């Protein structure tokens, strides 16, 4: 394309002191990688205590132990994925909000730290253990503060609690994801710290906690998605998937937590795996959705932010994993052989 004959004048175009979207995306990517590396590094540097000889742990794993380990991996990864979703999504959405309030930086920053803390599980009981626990609880607290800010944003916009503001104002569900990630992390931490000869009942309790968290979070996320897909007029039938499958999973998980019955496990597992898949499928759809905006990905400085938000759907995978972790734990029984 030709440059105009009248060239822009020699005056420098004073940009507002704000980073561009390119640097922002790069920053989010770097933050993610740094968090992952930090978490894993911490985990390697603080391996679980060695088992004293003669302890039950010195023998080959029981089914219960296998289940516990799997559950810990899943809840840890699930919370990390959830935190990643918060990091990228809040990073972008707060950017769209111009970071006009300095506290808005807290969301992506806390999410990054939460990724690291989650991936650091299992951490040692002493030292790193206490810090990790604090980080998880702090993440949840930051999420709660965020909820309060988002609610205030809704109320203070012209029109108050109107549909216009619900659709286009600060989303209430988003800080909830950070709360959830923090609380899941706290449970993961408790799971990691549990003595290896801890009773099965403790594992089942962790299972119920994870189930409760996943259930509530799945319903909350469903509500958020329902609102935003409703805003999009459900223009594509696939938009109904994330408001039907997750509630099904949540209901199933809640019921199973209340009345665990091994016969339900296969079906519930499949539903939860479907929720996991939704996270990936949804991401694909959102990428296509951005491409469908005017100018597609080439116009990404507008379209990536106009939506649909690409980092949002993967949070379902985080919750699905957490639900699967709950499933692993709910039926743990020391006496049950492999």
């Amino acid at each position, binding site marked *: *394309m030709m*440059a*105009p*004959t009248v060239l*822009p004048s020699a*005056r420098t175009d004073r*940009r507002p002191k704000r980073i561009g*979207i390119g640097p922002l995306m790069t920053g989010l990517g770097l933050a993610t990688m740094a968090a992952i590396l930090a978490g894993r590094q911490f985990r390697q540097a603080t391996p679980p205590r060695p088992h004293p000889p003669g302890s039950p742990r010195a023998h080959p794993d029981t089914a219960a132990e296998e289940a516990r380990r799997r559950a810990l991996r899943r809840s840890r990864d699930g919370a990390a994925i959830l935190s990643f979703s918060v990091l990228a999504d809040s990073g972008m959405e707060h950017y769209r909000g*111009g970071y006009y309030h300095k506290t808005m930086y807290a969301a992506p920053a806390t999410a990054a730290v939460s990724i690291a803390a989650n991936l650091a599980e299992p951490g040692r009981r002493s030292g790193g253990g206490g810090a990790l626990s604090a980080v998880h609880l702090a993440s949840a607290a930051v999420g709660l503060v965020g909820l309060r800010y988002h609610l205030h944003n809704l109320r203070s916009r012209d029109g108050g609690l109107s549909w216009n503001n619900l659709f286009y104002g600060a989303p209430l569900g988003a800080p909830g994801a950070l709360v959830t990630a923090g609380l899941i992390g706290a449970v993961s931490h408790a799971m990691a710290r549990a003595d290896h000869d801890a009773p099965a009942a403790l594992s089942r309790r962790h299972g119920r906690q994870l189930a409760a968290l996943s259930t509530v979070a799945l319903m909350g996320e469903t509500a958020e998605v329902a609102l935003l897909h409703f805003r999009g007029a459900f223009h594509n039938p696939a938009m109904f998937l994330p408001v039907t499958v997750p509630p099904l999973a949540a209901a199933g998980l809640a019921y199973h937590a209340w009345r665990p019955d091994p016969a339900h496990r296969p079906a519930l597992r499949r539903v939860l795996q479907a929720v996991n898949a939704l996270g990936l499928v949804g991401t694909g759809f959102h990428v296509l959705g951005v491409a469908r905006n005017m100018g597609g990905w080439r116009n990404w*400085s507008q379209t990536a932010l106009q939506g649909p938000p690409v980092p949002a759907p993967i949070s379902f995978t985080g919750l699905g994993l957490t639900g699967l972790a709950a499933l692993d734990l709910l039926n743990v029984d020391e006496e049950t052989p492999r």
Partner: protein
Amino acid sequence: MSDTFRSPYPGWDVLSKWSTPSYNEQTREVLNRRIDPPAPHALEREVYRTLCALCERVIPQHEDTQGPPPAPIAPWIDAAIAGGRSSGTRYDGMPDTPTAWRRGLAALDAEARQRHGQPFHRVPAQAQDAILRDVGKGQVKATAAWEGLEPRTFLRKVALKQIVEIYYAHPRGQSEIGYGGPASPRGYLRLGAGRTDEWEAPEGQWDRLREPAR
């Protein structure tokens, strides 16, 4: 109040995003043509000079020695007259648009000759302004020249309107008011009060509108 104009957006130029998704091919095509008008050929030279002087009174561009090059206005009006272009409305008692221009410019010259013995474009700027203000109020002196052409209607609905429409559709006019400029395929994201996109003008410096010029 001083008579100079200082834009509240001194650093802003809508052309700075020429190579971004805010511009599409056809917009660049159009703007490349806009800065390069055809040579004037509809009006005689002296009348054309009056047109230029009129344009300069309406938008005193040439005073800004530091600003961007002036937006061509008079050549485009000449081209429209040559092409017989109208606005779609011919008010009762007025001639068609090209004729209205010709007669109106001649009438401005007649006013200037009546008052100062010179055509409009040779008269000092303040006197030109005075003539325009009078015409705007309908207080004309060279009544014969205005026959069949209502002075207020000519000034407001033909002359001023078309001149400012050309100026403020041009990057220079757009930039000085902090308008966002071309916007396709990339439009705007941040629609709320006090919120701007990176590809818009930064916040305005409003004291520049108030301070007297140095």
